[in-house]
């Protein structure tokens, strides 16, 4: 059984590396180093291998490319790829939680325009999202909303039900290509209700409106920058059944914990390091569901 863990930023990489170090150290450990980023052990008649891919980069495209590269180059294929990273919580109370990503909506395609005052541009920019990529429009246009990326292993439609074997909750993701620090707005109202779909007037929405639109469906919502790219490339590579995304909510939209607190603590790093125990539990269950009864 071969599992790859992918991390994006330095704090996530640190948490994953420390998990690998703890596994491979301390006598007697059956784990052995196989290069700087991988460990392996024999387990019964099987061999377990755990490899860390530290990207030190972020974004839907970068994460998707990393996934594509692994599956193009790795032979035999990894049985599972676990993406481990932080996320922004839409609800402040959701900070400090862990979630498996069930589906990812892409909240990114839009427009940047100058903010002009009486015809003069003073350097301000207005960023909006074209709602045709998010919802069905009235009258219809030449585009359809982008279908969300769905992870079968975390939505009861894959060969293994990961939330059931781990007890971890699932959440949806609004995948952006920017760090969003605006609060949730008011969800736009439909012009005509469904079925089959609610129909909206063609408009450019603010991030606040778009996030409120996605958040309107039940269940926790996180904001991050990779899961949509991961899901779409995994689908194209026919490896959706191998991919799990584990997210730690380290920030809220308007209060990012990434900054060091007055007492000198980096709360994002702290939470990610703490949640490596959850990552370890997930890995244990993927290697051997019988472990940790």
């Amino acid at each position, binding site marked *: 059984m071969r599992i790859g863990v992918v991390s994006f930023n330095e704090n996530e990489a640190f948490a994953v590396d420390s998990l690998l170090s*703890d596994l491979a150290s*301390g006598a007697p450990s059956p784990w052995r180093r196989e290069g700087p980023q991988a460990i392996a052990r024999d387990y019964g008649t099987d061999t377990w291998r755990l490899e860390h891919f530290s990207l030190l980069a972020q974004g839907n495209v970068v994460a998707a490319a990393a996934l594509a590269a692994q599956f193009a180059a790795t032979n035999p294929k990894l049985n599972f790829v676990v993406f481990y990273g932080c996320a922004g919580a839409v609800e402040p109370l959701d900070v400090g939680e862990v979630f498996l990503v069930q589906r990812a909506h892409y909240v990114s395609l839009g427009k940047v325009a100058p903010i002009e005052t009486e015809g003069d541009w003073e350097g301000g920019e207005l960023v909006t999202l074209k709602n045709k990529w998010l919802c069905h429009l009235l009258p219809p246009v*030449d*585009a359809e909303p982008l279908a969300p990326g769905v992870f079968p292993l975390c939505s009861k439609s894959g060969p293994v*039900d990961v939330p059931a074997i781990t007890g971890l909750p699932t959440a949806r993701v609004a995948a952006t290509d920017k760090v969003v620090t605006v609060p949730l707005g008011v969800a736009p109202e439909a012009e005509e209700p469904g079925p089959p779909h609610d129909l909206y007037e063609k408009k450019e929405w603010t991030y606040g409106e778009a996030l409120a639109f996605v958040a309107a469906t039940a269940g926790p919502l996180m904001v991050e920058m990779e899961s949509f790219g991961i899901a779409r490339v995994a689908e194209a590579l026919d490896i959706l*059944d191998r991919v799990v995304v584990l997210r730690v909510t380290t920030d809220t939209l308007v209060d990012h914990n990434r900054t060091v607190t007055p007492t000198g603590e980096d709360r994002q790093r702290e939470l990610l390091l703490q949640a490596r*125990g959850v990552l370890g539990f997930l890995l244990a269950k993927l290697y051997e569901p019988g472990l940790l009864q």
Partner: protein
Amino acid sequence: MRIDAFLVQHPEAETLAALKSPGPGAPPPAPDVARLISQQRDSQMQTLARAMVGPRLEGDFAEAAADRERPRREPRPRKLRDPRKASGLFLATCAQAGAVLRSLDLSDVDDADRALGSLLVLVSLAIEAPRERQEHRSRWREVAAEAEQLRAMVGFGRTPFGAVLTPMLLEALSYGEMMVGWMVGELSGGLGDETGRRNLERWTRRTIREGAARLEELSASALERIEEEEPASAPETEESYRPARESLELSLAGERTAVDRFLNLVEKELEVARIERDIRWEPELTTVRIWSYVPLPRKRLIRLASEAGVAIVERGGGTTLPG
């Protein structure tokens, strides 16, 4: 779930200790194992539906943009994938589940779960690297024997191996029309319009056949490797073994009943050893491979095609019309 609450339930020290445990310990309770197997069984149709079509591509949307007179409001029709590719993807996902089940004890779950669990493990072992497979050969032998026994137990209306693997296993014998009809109904939700649905029945049959062939291949190849390590048994006598060396590939156009009629006629020819149906996916065509002991005269095949009412489509694109 809050991180600290999760870690109270599952302390990190315990997780690390479990990951460092010397080897498989006490088996998990049977209900847990049964749940894992049931999940695979219950997700088979969804897995096949995912394998049925290729990835979503935004080029599909560009195609719609060109048709501005009639903007689409419904999901776009999606092309069905090559059945060989689809069945391969489906079995790869079975192997995924098999890899998770491999170290678990299946002896305490009920017959149906054990049957499916064993088959998944079998597929998983067979797909992995040969070196690793040899290390598991004793278990492979047991699993292969168990799957072979259970195959005989499967009857109409029972799908212990799941909605997709059961017809794949039964393909060697035959599989029920009702089963295929039900599968087509389940899969059709993933397609956009009637164009896709028209081909879906044929696609489902071919995917089942391709899956059956792949299962057979996995099983045979693994067994062969085991047998290579054992003392060679007595060679078969000339009388009992007569290889059919000649093969001929034909693409047939016509109604399914006419194609069946043609193949029945060909099968009755003394020189013919066996016929492999649907060896490749071609829209509106049935492609077969005919194995025979000596080359089959072309004129005779054309006469039989004419008699049955099918056309043999030439590789170059021409058509030999019957009559």
